[in-house]
């Protein structure tokens, strides 16, 4: 038994030795290949993987632009720096200390202890090669993206207004042409054929028309109808807050965060899959990004104060069901798999958040009548589904499992 083990080990060590010599050879030959500073192709890969998140050759990002670094610093300085910048700064090196002070807000550069000297030389070779190229201005880090805040409703309003003006002008033109024509015909009345004479006598008798019952009835009907409709509309919409979009204490834009930067709703509304409320993010969540992004913006002053002192930001609540109704997010979002947009509309396009749905009982009930329960893969529904399929050939909808029961929502 032990003999067997010994043999395996011996074989193993032989193989290892073979590998070792092979690698050593490979290493040595690789060494002479790049006698000068290094191999820019390898350096590019290393740079992209390790440094590109903070450095660009031509422009300042998190760290300084690396253009001209080999003229500024010797490679003997760069290697220990990249491996452990904190140590170089602590050693009292004046250049490093000044650099650290200049980039204080970025924090100290991460150390790359795992990189070999040659790796760093390769990176520098790449930087050197890149220096000679013209900087590409497209995209890349530090640039501040421009945010569009154009409102297209004004455009629509202009078009509509233009239409109305054109139509009015046409009407006036037509009427004046008519009256000119009639005048002309009257001047040449003699030459008019007998059957066309009526044109001259064609006078509207406004008095008879206005005093007729039919006319009075129509007008009264229209006026009362209009008043009635407005009154009813406004009565119905009491307690309905669709379209409510109050100004918030911080001009927070969902269009920017959820739309342009594609931050997931769940990142901020952390309760949405675990509880009744979706929750409004606390200041520490904003600070995950705004510790670096726009960190001096006056618009974010309240966020910074809240983060420092714990004083909450007083957002204005938009959606608010009365206490008599119960609504649970996780049930709809996690269990039923509904998109937020189904109830909240295109939030990712909203500069200011607004209540999109009416949130009336009728709105809830309609959806419960139409929506098929997502039952597959959810054991809770297995028996319900079986029973439902015995009595009906329709797919199981929310109404079939008590979604219209008053006590589901009111208790």
């Amino acid at each position, binding site marked *: 038994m032990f003999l067997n083990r010994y043999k395996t080990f011996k074989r193993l060590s032989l193989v290892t030795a073979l590998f070792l010599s092979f690698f050593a050879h490979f290493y040595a030959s690789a060494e002479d290949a790049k006698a000068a500073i290094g191999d820019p192709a390898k350096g590019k890969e290393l740079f992209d993987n390790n440094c590109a*998140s903070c450095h660009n050759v031509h422009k300042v990002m998190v760290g300084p632009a690396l253009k001209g670094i080999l003229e500024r610093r010797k490679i003997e300085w760069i290697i220990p720096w990249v491996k452990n910048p904190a140590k170089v700064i602590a050693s009292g090196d004046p250049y490093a200390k000044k650099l650290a002070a200049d980039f204080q807000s970025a*924090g100290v550069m*991460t150390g790359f202890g795992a990189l070999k000297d040659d790796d760093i030389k390769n990176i520098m070779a790449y930087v050197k090669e890149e220096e000679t190229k013209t900087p590409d201005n497209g995209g890349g880090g530090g640039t501040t993206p421009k945010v569009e805040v154009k409102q297209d409703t004004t455009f629509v309003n202009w078009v509509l207004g233009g239409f109305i003006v054109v139509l009015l002008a046409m009407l006036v033109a037509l009427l004046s042409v008519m009256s000119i024509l009639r005048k002309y015909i009257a001047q040449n009345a003699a030459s008019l054929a007998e059957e066309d004479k009526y044109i001259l006598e064609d006078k509207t008798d406004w008095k008879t028309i206005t005093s007729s019952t039919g006319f009075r009835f129509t007008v009264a009907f229209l006026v009362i109808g209009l008043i009635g409709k407005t*009154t009813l509309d*406004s009565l119905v919409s009491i307690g309905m807050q669709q379209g409510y979009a109050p100004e918030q204490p911080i001009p927070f834009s969902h269009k920017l965060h959820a739309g342009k930067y594609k931050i997931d709703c769940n990142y901020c509304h952390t309760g949405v899959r675990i509880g009744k409320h979706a929750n*409004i993010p606390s200041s520490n969540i904003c600070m*995950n990004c705004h510790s670096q992004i726009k960190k001096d913006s006056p618009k974010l002053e309240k966020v910074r104060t809240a983060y420092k002192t714990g004083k909450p930001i007083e957002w204005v609540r938009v959606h608010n069901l*009365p206490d008599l109704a119960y609504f649970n997010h996780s049930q709809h979002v996690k269990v039923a798999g509904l998109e937020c947009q189904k109830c909240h509309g295109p939030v990712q396009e909203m500069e200011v958040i607004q209540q999109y749905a009416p949130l009336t009982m009728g709105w809830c009930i309609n959806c419960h009548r139409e929506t098929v329960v997502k039952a597959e893969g959810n054991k809770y529904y297995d028996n319900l589904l079986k029973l439902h399929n015995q009595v009906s050939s329709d797919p199981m909808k929310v109404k079939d499992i008590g979604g219209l029961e008053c006590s589901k929502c009111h208790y």
Partner: protein
Amino acid sequence: MKIVKYTLLSISFIGLVSCTKSVEDPGTEYAPAMYHSRAYEPLTQVTEEGNDYYNSNPNNPYKMNMRALPKNTIKISHFNANYYKNPEADLFFYKISKDSTGASVIATNPIPKSEAVIAEGKELYGRYCQHCHGETGKGDGEVGKVFGGVPNYAGAAKDRSESSIFYTITYGRNRMGAHGSQINVLDRWKIVHYVQTLQNQ
């Protein structure tokens, strides 16, 4: 007489119409006491004394009606030895603190690796990390490009251990902020599984 009648009518009409809401005003509510609760309720608070719907707690900082848990509270769902069969790993979370550095306390992932767990981790990663770290973990997410300094998992952060990744999610590291308040312990470990697949891609 007639004039009085008509004025009254039109006044009441205007009165009724003016109940409608506008962009800045939620409008009249049928039963306001049903919308503004005097009992404590999440996400609403009236702090001015004398208001009919005053529902603040003067004993809490800023009169908030919620409070942070006392220090060192252990949430029961975080300690569920039967599920993991590994209480050591269960309590790992409580052994690390903001001051320990990532790898200084070692723990193994209490959730066994499987296709399903990695798929779940991927979904969670998409929600909480992707906008910075990018879909494939290269640090090229939409926000990551503006934020700067997001490492490539397969590059600079390749050999981070699982407990170090867990620590990074929980307490943050250098420029990255803490995400412990957003993601529960189990989900964090699932994300760790997925990040490890990105490290080794």
